Protein backbone atom coordinates (compact mmCIF):
# COMPACT_ATOMS: atom_id res chain seq x y z
CA UNK A 1 0.00 0.00 0.00
CA UNK A 2 1.35 3.36 -0.99
CA UNK A 3 -0.23 6.61 -2.09
CA UNK A 4 1.43 6.04 -5.47
CA UNK A 5 -0.89 3.07 -5.99
CA UNK A 6 -3.85 5.48 -5.92
CA UNK A 7 -2.14 7.84 -8.37
CA UNK A 8 -1.22 4.97 -10.67
CA UNK A 9 -4.86 3.88 -10.75
CA UNK A 10 -5.91 7.45 -11.54
CA UNK A 11 -3.47 7.56 -14.45
CA UNK A 12 -4.87 4.26 -15.73
CA UNK A 13 -8.41 5.54 -15.38
CA UNK A 14 -8.00 9.15 -16.58
CA UNK A 15 -4.38 10.04 -17.32
CA UNK A 16 -4.99 13.29 -19.15
CA UNK A 17 -7.54 14.75 -16.74
CA UNK A 18 -6.23 17.76 -14.87
CA UNK A 19 -5.29 16.81 -11.32
CA UNK A 20 -4.35 20.19 -9.85
CA UNK A 21 -4.49 23.79 -11.03
CA UNK A 22 -2.83 26.83 -9.49
CA UNK A 23 -3.27 30.18 -11.19
CA UNK A 24 -2.75 29.41 -14.86
CA UNK A 25 -0.64 26.28 -14.31
CA UNK A 26 -1.92 22.73 -14.37
CA UNK A 27 -0.70 19.17 -13.86
CA UNK A 28 -2.63 16.23 -15.25
CA UNK A 29 -2.45 12.82 -13.60
CA UNK A 30 0.15 11.50 -16.03
CA UNK A 31 2.35 14.57 -15.49
CA UNK A 32 1.92 14.25 -11.75
CA UNK A 33 3.10 10.66 -11.96
CA UNK A 34 6.24 11.36 -14.02
CA UNK A 35 6.85 14.44 -11.88
CA UNK A 36 6.63 12.30 -8.74
CA UNK A 37 9.20 9.92 -10.21
CA UNK A 38 11.53 12.86 -10.88
CA UNK A 39 11.10 14.14 -7.34
CA UNK A 40 11.89 10.67 -6.00
CA UNK A 41 15.11 10.63 -7.99
CA UNK A 42 16.06 14.06 -6.68
CA UNK A 43 15.45 12.90 -3.12
CA UNK A 44 17.52 9.77 -3.59
CA UNK A 45 20.38 11.74 -5.08
CA UNK A 46 20.22 14.30 -2.27
CA UNK A 47 20.56 11.54 0.30
CA UNK A 48 17.94 13.05 2.60
CA UNK A 49 15.47 11.38 4.94
CA UNK A 50 12.53 13.75 4.56
CA UNK A 51 10.97 16.09 2.03
CA UNK A 52 9.73 19.21 3.80
CA UNK A 53 7.69 22.11 2.51
CA UNK A 54 7.63 25.55 4.10
CA UNK A 55 5.28 27.32 1.72
CA UNK A 56 1.76 28.14 0.68
CA UNK A 57 -0.10 25.76 -1.62
CA UNK A 58 1.37 25.37 -5.07
CA UNK A 59 1.87 22.56 -7.58
CA UNK A 60 4.87 21.64 -5.43
CA UNK A 61 2.39 20.19 -2.94
CA UNK A 62 1.03 17.28 -5.01
CA UNK A 63 4.48 16.74 -6.54
CA UNK A 64 6.02 16.70 -3.09
CA UNK A 65 3.42 14.43 -1.52
CA UNK A 66 3.51 11.80 -4.26
CA UNK A 67 7.21 12.25 -4.97
CA UNK A 68 8.13 11.48 -1.39
CA UNK A 69 5.71 8.52 -1.44
CA UNK A 70 7.54 7.25 -4.53
CA UNK A 71 10.86 7.58 -2.70
CA UNK A 72 9.52 5.94 0.45
CA UNK A 73 10.25 9.05 2.52
CA UNK A 74 7.98 11.08 4.79
CA UNK A 75 6.49 14.33 3.47
CA UNK A 76 6.53 17.16 6.03
CA UNK A 77 4.45 20.24 5.21
CA UNK A 78 5.27 23.02 7.70
CA UNK A 79 3.50 26.18 8.76
CA UNK A 80 4.99 28.81 6.47
CA UNK A 81 4.58 31.47 9.15
CA UNK A 82 7.17 29.76 11.34
CA UNK A 83 10.43 31.63 11.85
CA UNK A 84 13.46 31.66 14.05
CA UNK A 85 13.94 29.28 16.92
CA UNK A 86 10.59 27.57 16.49
CA UNK A 87 11.33 26.70 12.87
CA UNK A 88 14.88 25.62 13.64
CA UNK A 89 13.76 23.20 16.31
CA UNK A 90 11.18 21.58 13.98
CA UNK A 91 13.72 21.29 11.16
CA UNK A 92 16.25 19.77 13.55
CA UNK A 93 13.74 16.94 14.18
CA UNK A 94 13.58 16.04 10.47
CA UNK A 95 17.11 16.74 9.34
CA UNK A 96 18.58 15.71 6.88
CA UNK A 97 15.84 17.03 4.62
CA UNK A 98 15.21 18.66 1.28
CA UNK A 99 13.12 21.75 1.96
CA UNK A 100 10.93 23.44 -0.65
CA UNK A 101 10.20 27.07 0.12
CA UNK A 102 9.72 30.49 -1.48
CA UNK A 103 12.76 31.81 -3.37
CA UNK A 104 13.26 34.55 -0.80
CA UNK A 105 13.80 32.07 2.04
CA UNK A 106 16.09 29.56 0.31
CA UNK A 107 19.32 31.14 1.49
CA UNK A 108 18.20 31.60 5.06
CA UNK A 109 16.90 28.05 5.62
CA UNK A 110 19.63 26.47 3.51
CA UNK A 111 22.11 27.49 6.20
CA UNK A 112 20.48 25.27 8.82
CA UNK A 113 22.28 22.00 9.57
CA UNK A 114 21.23 19.12 7.34
CA UNK A 115 18.78 21.22 5.32
CA UNK A 116 19.08 21.50 1.54
CA UNK A 117 16.72 24.23 0.35
CA UNK A 118 15.19 24.59 -3.09
CA UNK A 119 12.78 27.20 -4.35
CA UNK A 120 9.23 26.17 -5.15
CA UNK A 121 9.62 27.30 -8.78
CA UNK A 122 12.85 25.32 -9.30
CA UNK A 123 11.32 22.27 -7.66
CA UNK A 124 8.25 22.38 -9.94
CA UNK A 125 10.27 23.15 -13.08
CA UNK A 126 12.61 20.22 -12.48
CA UNK A 127 9.70 17.85 -11.95
CA UNK A 128 7.93 19.06 -15.08
CA UNK A 129 11.05 18.71 -17.22
CA UNK A 130 11.41 15.02 -16.45
CA UNK A 131 10.14 12.38 -18.81
CA UNK A 132 11.32 9.08 -17.34
CA UNK A 133 8.37 6.87 -16.51
CA UNK A 134 7.75 6.10 -12.87
CA UNK A 135 9.88 3.33 -11.46
CA UNK A 136 9.03 1.14 -8.53
CA UNK A 137 8.03 2.36 -5.13
CA UNK A 138 8.11 0.60 -1.79
CA UNK A 139 4.90 -1.20 -0.86
CA UNK A 140 5.33 -1.37 2.89
CA UNK A 141 2.04 -0.02 4.29
CA UNK A 142 3.79 0.89 7.52
CA UNK A 143 6.06 3.38 5.79
CA UNK A 144 5.45 6.93 6.97
CA UNK A 145 3.61 9.00 4.34
CA UNK A 146 3.26 12.33 6.15
CA UNK A 147 4.49 13.97 9.33
CA UNK A 148 2.27 16.78 10.53
CA UNK A 149 3.30 18.93 13.47
CA UNK A 150 0.14 19.53 15.43
CA UNK A 151 -0.63 22.82 17.12
CA UNK A 152 -0.08 21.78 20.70
CA UNK A 153 -2.09 23.58 23.34
CA UNK A 154 0.71 22.92 25.81
CA UNK A 155 4.41 22.49 25.23
CA UNK A 156 6.26 22.04 21.96
CA UNK A 157 4.46 20.98 18.77
CA UNK A 158 4.66 17.24 18.20
CA UNK A 159 4.77 15.47 14.84
CA UNK A 160 1.76 13.25 14.17
CA UNK A 161 2.79 10.20 12.16
CA UNK A 162 0.47 9.26 9.28
CA UNK A 163 1.48 6.05 7.50
CA UNK A 164 0.50 5.00 3.98
CA UNK A 165 -1.91 2.43 5.36
CA UNK A 166 -3.83 5.14 7.25
CA UNK A 167 -4.34 7.43 4.27
CA UNK A 168 -5.03 4.64 1.79
CA UNK A 169 -7.61 2.97 4.02
CA UNK A 170 -9.24 6.35 4.69
CA UNK A 171 -9.54 7.06 0.96
CA UNK A 172 -10.71 3.56 0.03
CA UNK A 173 -13.32 3.73 2.79
CA UNK A 174 -14.77 7.05 1.78
CA UNK A 175 -14.21 7.62 -1.94
CA UNK A 176 -15.43 5.78 -5.01
CA UNK A 177 -12.76 5.43 -7.71
CA UNK A 178 -13.19 7.94 -10.57
CA UNK A 179 -16.63 8.86 -9.33
CA UNK A 180 -16.12 12.48 -10.31
CA UNK A 181 -17.35 13.93 -13.59
CA UNK A 182 -14.80 15.69 -15.75
CA UNK A 183 -16.40 19.00 -14.83
CA UNK A 184 -16.18 18.44 -11.08
CA UNK A 185 -13.82 20.95 -9.50
CA UNK A 186 -12.76 21.24 -5.87
CA UNK A 187 -11.47 24.48 -4.35
CA UNK A 188 -8.85 23.91 -1.67
CA UNK A 189 -7.91 26.97 0.38
CA UNK A 190 -6.54 25.40 3.55
CA UNK A 191 -2.77 25.42 4.03
CA UNK A 192 -0.63 22.38 3.06
CA UNK A 193 0.05 21.55 6.71
CA UNK A 194 -3.68 21.03 7.42
CA UNK A 195 -4.65 17.33 7.37
CA UNK A 196 -7.83 18.32 5.51
CA UNK A 197 -5.68 19.64 2.64
CA UNK A 198 -3.69 16.40 2.45
CA UNK A 199 -6.86 14.31 2.62
CA UNK A 200 -8.59 16.43 -0.01
CA UNK A 201 -5.64 16.02 -2.37
CA UNK A 202 -5.44 12.25 -2.06
CA UNK A 203 -9.23 11.80 -2.19
CA UNK A 204 -9.52 14.02 -5.24
CA UNK A 205 -6.81 12.13 -7.10
CA UNK A 206 -8.66 8.87 -6.45
CA UNK A 207 -12.08 10.21 -7.40
CA UNK A 208 -10.74 12.04 -10.44
CA UNK A 209 -11.88 15.43 -9.23
CA UNK A 210 -9.80 18.40 -10.38
CA UNK A 211 -8.48 20.66 -7.62
CA UNK A 212 -7.91 24.40 -7.90
CA UNK A 213 -5.71 25.85 -5.20
CA UNK A 214 -6.19 29.19 -3.46
CA UNK A 215 -2.85 29.69 -1.68
CA UNK A 216 -3.95 32.54 0.57
CA UNK A 217 -7.50 32.76 1.81
CA UNK A 218 -9.41 35.94 1.17
CA UNK A 219 -13.19 35.93 0.88
CA UNK A 220 -13.34 37.99 -2.32
CA UNK A 221 -10.60 35.92 -3.95
CA UNK A 222 -12.40 32.71 -2.96
CA UNK A 223 -15.66 33.89 -4.48
CA UNK A 224 -13.96 35.00 -7.69
CA UNK A 225 -12.04 31.72 -8.05
CA UNK A 226 -15.16 29.68 -7.34
CA UNK A 227 -16.98 31.64 -10.01
CA UNK A 228 -14.28 31.65 -12.72
CA UNK A 229 -13.27 27.98 -12.28
CA UNK A 230 -16.85 26.73 -12.01
CA UNK A 231 -16.07 25.18 -8.67
CA UNK A 232 -18.49 22.42 -7.68
CA UNK A 233 -17.02 21.40 -4.31
CA UNK A 234 -15.13 23.26 -1.61
CA UNK A 235 -13.77 22.68 1.86
CA UNK A 236 -13.49 25.57 4.33
CA UNK A 237 -12.93 26.08 8.01
CA UNK A 238 -15.87 27.78 9.80
CA UNK A 239 -14.22 31.22 10.06
CA UNK A 240 -13.70 31.20 6.28
CA UNK A 241 -17.38 30.40 5.68
CA UNK A 242 -18.34 33.31 7.92
CA UNK A 243 -16.12 35.67 5.87
CA UNK A 244 -17.49 34.33 2.57
CA UNK A 245 -21.06 34.82 3.76
CA UNK A 246 -20.30 38.38 4.90
CA UNK A 247 -18.75 39.20 1.52
CA UNK A 248 -21.70 37.74 -0.39
CA UNK A 249 -24.22 39.54 1.82
CA UNK A 250 -22.41 42.79 0.99
CA UNK A 251 -22.62 42.20 -2.75
CA UNK A 252 -25.84 42.16 -4.71
CA UNK A 253 -25.95 38.56 -5.89
CA UNK A 254 -24.66 35.09 -5.21
CA UNK A 255 -23.32 34.17 -8.65
CA UNK A 256 -22.06 30.63 -8.03
CA UNK A 257 -24.49 28.42 -9.93
CA UNK A 258 -22.08 25.48 -10.23
CA UNK A 259 -21.37 25.17 -6.52
CA UNK A 260 -22.98 21.93 -5.33
CA UNK A 261 -21.25 21.03 -2.10
CA UNK A 262 -19.57 22.85 0.75
CA UNK A 263 -17.86 20.86 3.45
CA UNK A 264 -16.32 22.31 6.56
CA UNK A 265 -14.38 21.26 9.61
CA UNK A 266 -11.34 21.98 11.70
CA UNK A 267 -13.26 23.83 14.33
CA UNK A 268 -16.68 24.49 15.76
CA UNK A 269 -19.29 25.94 13.38
CA UNK A 270 -21.42 28.59 15.11
CA UNK A 271 -25.14 27.94 14.64
CA UNK A 272 -25.85 31.36 13.10
CA UNK A 273 -23.13 30.88 10.48
CA UNK A 274 -24.42 27.53 9.22
CA UNK A 275 -27.99 28.85 9.23
CA UNK A 276 -27.01 31.90 7.18
CA UNK A 277 -24.89 29.69 4.92
CA UNK A 278 -27.78 27.34 4.21
CA UNK A 279 -30.10 30.28 3.52
CA UNK A 280 -27.61 31.97 1.18
CA UNK A 281 -26.59 28.82 -0.70
CA UNK A 282 -29.98 27.26 -1.33
CA UNK A 283 -29.64 23.84 -2.87
CA UNK A 284 -25.97 23.42 -1.92
CA UNK A 285 -25.11 20.27 0.07
CA UNK A 286 -23.44 21.09 3.39
CA UNK A 287 -21.25 18.55 5.15
CA UNK A 288 -19.61 18.92 8.55
CA UNK A 289 -16.55 16.72 8.81
CA UNK A 290 -15.07 16.14 12.26
CA UNK A 291 -11.66 14.62 12.40
CA UNK A 292 -8.15 15.02 13.71
CA UNK A 293 -4.69 14.99 12.23
CA UNK A 294 -4.12 11.82 14.23
CA UNK A 295 -7.05 10.06 12.57
CA UNK A 296 -6.04 10.98 8.99
CA UNK A 297 -8.90 13.52 9.01
CA UNK A 298 -12.61 12.68 9.05
CA UNK A 299 -14.07 10.28 11.58
CA UNK A 300 -17.64 11.61 11.78
CA UNK A 301 -19.89 13.32 9.25
CA UNK A 302 -23.05 15.42 9.41
CA UNK A 303 -24.21 15.02 5.82
CA UNK A 304 -26.37 17.18 3.58
CA UNK A 305 -29.60 15.33 4.43
CA UNK A 306 -28.81 15.63 8.13
CA UNK A 307 -28.38 19.38 7.69
CA UNK A 308 -31.69 19.74 5.86
CA UNK A 309 -33.64 17.56 8.27
CA UNK A 310 -32.31 19.45 11.28
CA UNK A 311 -32.96 22.86 9.72
CA UNK A 312 -36.52 21.92 8.74
CA UNK A 313 -37.45 20.08 11.91
CA UNK A 314 -39.77 21.28 14.65
CA UNK A 315 -38.47 18.63 17.02
CA UNK A 316 -35.88 20.20 19.36
CA UNK A 317 -33.69 17.09 19.48
CA UNK A 318 -33.53 16.98 15.69
CA UNK A 319 -32.96 20.74 15.45
CA UNK A 320 -29.95 20.50 17.77
CA UNK A 321 -28.25 18.13 15.37
CA UNK A 322 -27.37 21.09 13.18
CA UNK A 323 -24.56 21.78 15.67
CA UNK A 324 -23.54 18.14 15.99
CA UNK A 325 -20.76 16.47 14.04
CA UNK A 326 -23.10 13.78 12.78
CA UNK A 327 -22.43 10.05 12.83
CA UNK A 328 -19.16 8.11 12.70
CA UNK A 329 -17.86 6.72 9.39
CA UNK A 330 -18.96 3.10 8.91
CA UNK A 331 -15.40 1.79 9.00
CA UNK A 332 -14.77 3.20 12.47
CA UNK A 333 -15.80 2.63 16.07
CA UNK A 334 -16.33 5.65 18.33
CA UNK A 335 -16.92 5.44 22.08
CA UNK A 336 -17.36 7.92 24.91
CA UNK A 337 -15.31 7.07 27.99
CA UNK A 338 -14.91 8.54 31.45
CA UNK A 339 -11.72 9.71 33.16
CA UNK A 340 -10.86 6.12 34.04
CA UNK A 341 -11.18 5.03 30.45
CA UNK A 342 -14.46 3.16 30.97
CA UNK A 343 -17.32 3.52 28.48
CA UNK A 344 -20.01 5.86 29.84
CA UNK A 345 -23.69 5.07 29.80
CA UNK A 346 -25.70 6.07 26.75
CA UNK A 347 -25.98 9.84 26.33
CA UNK A 348 -23.44 10.73 29.00
CA UNK A 349 -20.48 13.04 28.45
CA UNK A 350 -16.89 11.97 28.39
CA UNK A 351 -13.82 11.76 26.20
CA UNK A 352 -14.20 10.66 22.58
CA UNK A 353 -12.24 7.51 21.73
CA UNK A 354 -11.92 6.11 18.21
CA UNK A 355 -10.64 2.90 16.64
CA UNK A 356 -10.12 1.97 13.00
CA UNK A 357 -7.62 1.44 10.18
CA UNK A 358 -7.24 5.13 9.42
CA UNK A 359 -6.41 6.00 13.05
CA UNK A 360 -2.75 6.62 13.79
CA UNK A 361 -2.48 8.40 17.14
CA UNK A 362 1.27 8.10 16.92
CA UNK A 363 3.80 10.89 17.40
CA UNK A 364 7.44 11.07 16.36
CA UNK A 365 9.75 10.26 19.20
CA UNK A 366 6.99 9.86 21.77
CA UNK A 367 5.08 7.06 23.35
CA UNK A 368 1.78 6.40 21.59
CA UNK A 369 -1.46 7.12 23.39
CA UNK A 370 -3.25 4.33 21.50
CA UNK A 371 -4.20 1.42 23.76
CA UNK A 372 -3.12 -2.14 23.09
CA UNK A 373 -6.46 -2.92 21.48
CA UNK A 374 -6.30 0.06 19.14
CA UNK A 375 -8.39 2.75 20.90
CA UNK A 376 -7.17 6.33 20.46
CA UNK A 377 -8.14 9.03 23.00
CA UNK A 378 -8.89 12.18 21.00
CA UNK A 379 -8.67 14.55 24.01
CA UNK A 380 -11.97 15.97 22.78
CA UNK A 381 -14.97 15.75 25.04
CA UNK A 382 -18.42 14.95 23.72
CA UNK A 383 -21.53 12.77 23.85
CA UNK A 384 -24.03 10.95 21.64
CA UNK A 385 -27.70 11.90 21.56
CA UNK A 386 -30.48 9.34 21.48
CA UNK A 387 -30.20 8.98 17.71
CA UNK A 388 -26.46 8.31 17.69
CA UNK A 389 -25.44 11.84 16.68
CA UNK A 390 -22.12 12.99 18.12
CA UNK A 391 -21.79 16.37 19.82
CA UNK A 392 -18.47 18.05 20.65
CA UNK A 393 -17.93 19.88 23.91
CA UNK A 394 -14.40 21.17 23.49
CA UNK A 395 -10.97 19.89 24.42
CA UNK A 396 -10.72 17.91 27.63
CA UNK A 397 -8.04 20.39 28.68
CA UNK A 398 -10.56 23.22 28.35
CA UNK A 399 -12.94 21.71 30.89
CA UNK A 400 -13.68 24.21 33.66
CA UNK A 401 -13.49 22.87 37.19
CA UNK A 402 -15.69 25.01 39.45
CA UNK A 403 -15.94 23.89 43.03
CA UNK A 404 -15.29 20.30 42.05
CA UNK A 405 -17.87 20.34 39.28
CA UNK A 406 -16.71 19.76 35.69
CA UNK A 407 -18.24 22.24 33.27
CA UNK A 408 -17.96 22.02 29.52
CA UNK A 409 -17.22 25.28 27.72
CA UNK A 410 -18.83 23.91 24.56
CA UNK A 411 -22.20 23.47 26.22
CA UNK A 412 -22.27 27.05 27.48
CA UNK A 413 -20.95 28.39 24.16
CA UNK A 414 -23.75 26.60 22.31
CA UNK A 415 -26.36 28.31 24.49
CA UNK A 416 -24.77 31.75 23.99
CA UNK A 417 -24.55 31.09 20.24
CA UNK A 418 -28.27 30.41 20.13
CA UNK A 419 -29.00 33.99 21.32
CA UNK A 420 -29.95 36.09 18.30
CA UNK A 421 -27.49 38.88 19.15
CA UNK A 422 -24.47 36.58 19.43
CA UNK A 423 -22.27 35.89 16.40
CA UNK A 424 -19.50 34.03 18.20
CA UNK A 425 -18.62 33.06 21.76
CA UNK A 426 -15.79 31.57 23.76
CA UNK A 427 -16.10 30.26 27.30
CA UNK A 428 -13.11 29.64 29.54
CA UNK A 429 -12.30 29.08 33.17
CA UNK A 430 -10.50 31.85 35.02
CA UNK A 431 -8.90 31.44 38.46
CA UNK A 432 -11.07 32.24 41.46
CA UNK A 433 -10.14 32.18 45.13
CA UNK A 434 -13.45 30.75 46.29
CA UNK A 435 -14.28 28.23 43.52
CA UNK A 436 -10.90 27.40 42.03
CA UNK A 437 -12.17 28.41 38.64
CA UNK A 438 -15.24 30.28 37.47
CA UNK A 439 -16.87 30.61 34.09
CA UNK A 440 -15.94 33.61 31.98
CA UNK A 441 -17.25 34.33 28.51
CA UNK A 442 -16.18 36.46 25.60
CA UNK A 443 -18.88 37.29 23.10
CA UNK A 444 -18.84 38.78 19.60
CA UNK A 445 -22.13 40.47 18.78
CA UNK A 446 -23.69 40.67 15.34
CA UNK A 447 -23.13 44.03 13.70
CA UNK A 448 -25.67 46.64 14.67
CA UNK A 449 -27.18 44.74 17.59
CA UNK A 450 -26.82 45.26 21.27
CA UNK A 451 -27.02 43.00 24.27
CA UNK A 452 -25.85 43.52 27.80
CA UNK A 453 -24.16 41.25 30.28
CA UNK A 454 -27.21 40.72 32.52
CA UNK A 455 -29.40 39.82 29.58
CA UNK A 456 -26.96 37.17 28.34
CA UNK A 457 -26.38 35.81 31.84
CA UNK A 458 -30.13 35.44 32.35
CA UNK A 459 -30.38 33.75 28.95
CA UNK A 460 -27.84 31.14 29.99
CA UNK A 461 -29.25 30.74 33.50
CA UNK A 462 -32.71 29.97 32.10
CA UNK A 463 -31.31 27.13 30.02
CA UNK A 464 -28.49 25.68 32.13
CA UNK A 465 -27.78 25.49 35.85
CA UNK A 466 -26.61 28.64 37.58
CA UNK A 467 -23.11 27.25 38.06
CA UNK A 468 -22.78 27.35 34.28
CA UNK A 469 -23.73 30.99 34.01
CA UNK A 470 -20.72 33.10 33.07
CA UNK A 471 -19.66 35.20 36.01
CA UNK A 472 -18.25 37.74 33.58
CA UNK A 473 -18.86 38.52 29.94
CA UNK A 474 -16.66 40.69 27.77
CA UNK A 475 -17.51 41.91 24.29
CA UNK A 476 -14.77 41.63 21.67
CA UNK A 477 -14.72 42.33 17.92
CA UNK A 478 -13.45 38.87 17.09
CA UNK A 479 -12.13 35.71 18.70
CA UNK A 480 -8.65 34.26 18.18
CA UNK A 481 -8.54 31.32 15.75
CA UNK A 482 -5.56 29.55 14.23
CA UNK A 483 -5.29 28.82 10.51
CA UNK A 484 -6.69 25.34 10.82
CA UNK A 485 -9.91 26.75 12.21
CA UNK A 486 -9.41 26.11 15.91
CA UNK A 487 -10.72 28.51 18.51
CA UNK A 488 -7.77 29.31 20.76
CA UNK A 489 -9.40 29.26 24.20
CA UNK A 490 -6.02 29.43 25.90
CA UNK A 491 -5.38 32.79 24.21
CA UNK A 492 -8.76 34.04 25.39
CA UNK A 493 -8.02 32.80 28.89
CA UNK A 494 -4.57 34.40 28.92
CA UNK A 495 -5.99 37.78 27.92
CA UNK A 496 -8.78 37.64 30.48
CA UNK A 497 -6.38 36.67 33.23
CA UNK A 498 -3.88 39.37 32.22
CA UNK A 499 -6.58 42.02 32.35
CA UNK A 500 -7.25 40.99 35.93
Amino acid at each position, binding site marked *: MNLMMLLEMAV*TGAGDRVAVKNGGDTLDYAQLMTGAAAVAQTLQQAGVEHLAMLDESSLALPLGLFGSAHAGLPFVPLNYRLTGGELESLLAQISPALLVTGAERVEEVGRLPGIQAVSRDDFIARARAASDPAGEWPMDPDQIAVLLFTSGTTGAPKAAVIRHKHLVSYV*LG*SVEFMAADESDTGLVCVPPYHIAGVAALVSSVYSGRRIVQLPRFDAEAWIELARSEHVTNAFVVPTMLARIIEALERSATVDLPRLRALSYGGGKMPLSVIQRGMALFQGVDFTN*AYGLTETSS*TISILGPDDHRRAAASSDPEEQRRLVSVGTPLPALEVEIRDEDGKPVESGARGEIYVRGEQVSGEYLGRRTTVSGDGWFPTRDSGYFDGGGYLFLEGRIDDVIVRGGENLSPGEIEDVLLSHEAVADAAVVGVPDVQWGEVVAAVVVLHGGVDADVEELQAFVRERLRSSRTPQSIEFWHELPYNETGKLLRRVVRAELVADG
Partner: protein
Amino acid sequence: MAELKPGARLRSSVCNTEVMVVLTPSGDVELQCGGASMIALGTDPDASLSLSADFSQGTQVGKRYVSEAGDLEVLCTKPGEGSISLGGAALQIKGAKPLPSSD
Protein backbone atom coordinates in the same frame (compact mmCIF):
# COMPACT_ATOMS: atom_id res chain seq x y z
CA MET B 1 -2.37 -20.92 -2.74
CA ALA B 2 -1.46 -19.67 0.68
CA GLU B 3 -3.19 -17.46 3.19
CA LEU B 4 -3.94 -13.90 2.08
CA LYS B 5 -3.64 -10.68 4.07
CA PRO B 6 -5.54 -7.42 3.58
CA GLY B 7 -3.28 -5.01 1.70
CA ALA B 8 -1.53 -7.79 -0.20
CA ARG B 9 -0.99 -6.99 -3.88
CA LEU B 10 -1.38 -9.74 -6.41
CA ARG B 11 -1.07 -10.07 -10.17
CA SER B 12 -2.57 -12.36 -12.74
CA SER B 13 -0.36 -15.09 -14.20
CA VAL B 14 -2.01 -14.82 -17.60
CA CYS B 15 -2.96 -11.16 -18.15
CA ASN B 16 -2.22 -7.66 -16.83
CA THR B 17 -4.73 -7.66 -14.00
CA GLU B 18 -3.45 -6.52 -10.60
CA VAL B 19 -5.45 -6.38 -7.39
CA MET B 20 -5.11 -5.37 -3.77
CA VAL B 21 -6.75 -7.58 -1.16
CA VAL B 22 -9.35 -5.70 0.92
CA LEU B 23 -11.04 -8.51 2.82
CA THR B 24 -10.09 -12.16 3.05
CA PRO B 25 -11.28 -15.28 4.86
CA SER B 26 -8.68 -17.00 7.00
CA GLY B 27 -6.93 -20.11 5.85
CA ASP B 28 -5.76 -20.98 2.36
CA VAL B 29 -7.40 -19.03 -0.44
CA GLU B 30 -7.41 -20.23 -4.04
CA LEU B 31 -7.60 -16.87 -5.86
CA GLN B 32 -7.39 -17.04 -9.63
CA CYS B 33 -7.52 -14.71 -12.57
CA GLY B 34 -8.14 -15.92 -16.08
CA GLY B 35 -8.35 -19.41 -14.59
CA ALA B 36 -4.79 -19.42 -13.27
CA SER B 37 -3.51 -18.82 -9.74
CA MET B 38 -2.77 -15.19 -8.90
CA ILE B 39 0.75 -14.55 -7.66
CA ALA B 40 2.40 -11.87 -5.55
CA LEU B 41 3.14 -8.61 -7.38
CA GLY B 42 6.77 -8.57 -8.31
CA THR B 43 7.09 -12.29 -8.97
CA ASP B 44 7.34 -13.66 -12.50
CA PRO B 45 4.43 -15.64 -13.89
CA ASP B 46 4.71 -19.16 -15.24
CA ALA B 47 4.98 -18.58 -18.99
CA SER B 48 3.39 -21.91 -19.83
CA LEU B 49 0.02 -20.82 -18.45
CA SER B 50 -2.60 -19.19 -20.64
CA LEU B 51 -5.84 -17.28 -20.30
CA SER B 52 -8.86 -19.52 -19.91
CA ALA B 53 -11.83 -18.65 -22.11
CA ASP B 54 -14.16 -19.35 -19.19
CA PHE B 55 -12.59 -16.55 -17.16
CA SER B 56 -11.95 -13.80 -19.68
CA GLN B 57 -14.70 -11.27 -18.92
CA GLY B 58 -12.01 -8.75 -17.97
CA THR B 59 -11.43 -6.65 -14.84
CA GLN B 60 -11.79 -2.88 -14.50
CA VAL B 61 -9.52 -0.59 -12.53
CA GLY B 62 -11.09 0.85 -9.38
CA LYS B 63 -13.83 -1.78 -9.18
CA ARG B 64 -14.16 -4.07 -6.19
CA TYR B 65 -14.80 -7.78 -6.74
CA VAL B 66 -16.45 -9.90 -4.06
CA SER B 67 -17.14 -13.55 -3.44
CA GLU B 68 -20.75 -14.67 -3.12
CA ALA B 69 -20.31 -15.20 0.60
CA GLY B 70 -18.88 -11.70 0.86
CA ASP B 71 -15.85 -12.93 2.75
CA LEU B 72 -13.34 -12.10 0.03
CA GLU B 73 -13.03 -8.66 -1.55
CA VAL B 74 -10.30 -7.35 -3.83
CA LEU B 75 -9.80 -3.93 -5.44
CA CYS B 76 -8.62 -3.96 -9.03
CA THR B 77 -5.59 -1.67 -9.28
CA LYS B 78 -4.72 -2.49 -12.89
CA PRO B 79 -7.17 -3.77 -15.48
CA GLY B 80 -6.73 -6.88 -17.59
CA GLU B 81 -8.46 -9.41 -19.83
CA GLY B 82 -8.99 -12.14 -17.30
CA SER B 83 -11.74 -12.31 -14.71
CA ILE B 84 -11.27 -13.21 -11.07
CA SER B 85 -12.49 -16.35 -9.36
CA LEU B 86 -12.28 -17.95 -5.95
CA GLY B 87 -12.01 -21.73 -5.91
CA GLY B 88 -13.48 -21.81 -9.39
CA ALA B 89 -16.45 -19.50 -8.66
CA ALA B 90 -16.35 -16.12 -10.43
CA LEU B 91 -16.26 -13.00 -8.23
CA GLN B 92 -18.92 -10.36 -8.78
CA ILE B 93 -18.48 -6.60 -9.08
CA LYS B 94 -19.46 -4.89 -5.85
CA GLY B 95 -22.16 -2.27 -6.37
CA ALA B 96 -20.92 1.28 -5.89
CA LYS B 97 -22.69 2.50 -2.75
CA PRO B 98 -22.67 6.21 -1.97
CA LEU B 99 -19.80 6.61 0.47
CA PRO B 100 -19.95 9.36 3.08
CA SER B 101 -17.30 11.71 1.76
CA SER B 102 -16.28 14.99 3.28
CA ASP B 103 -13.42 16.04 1.02
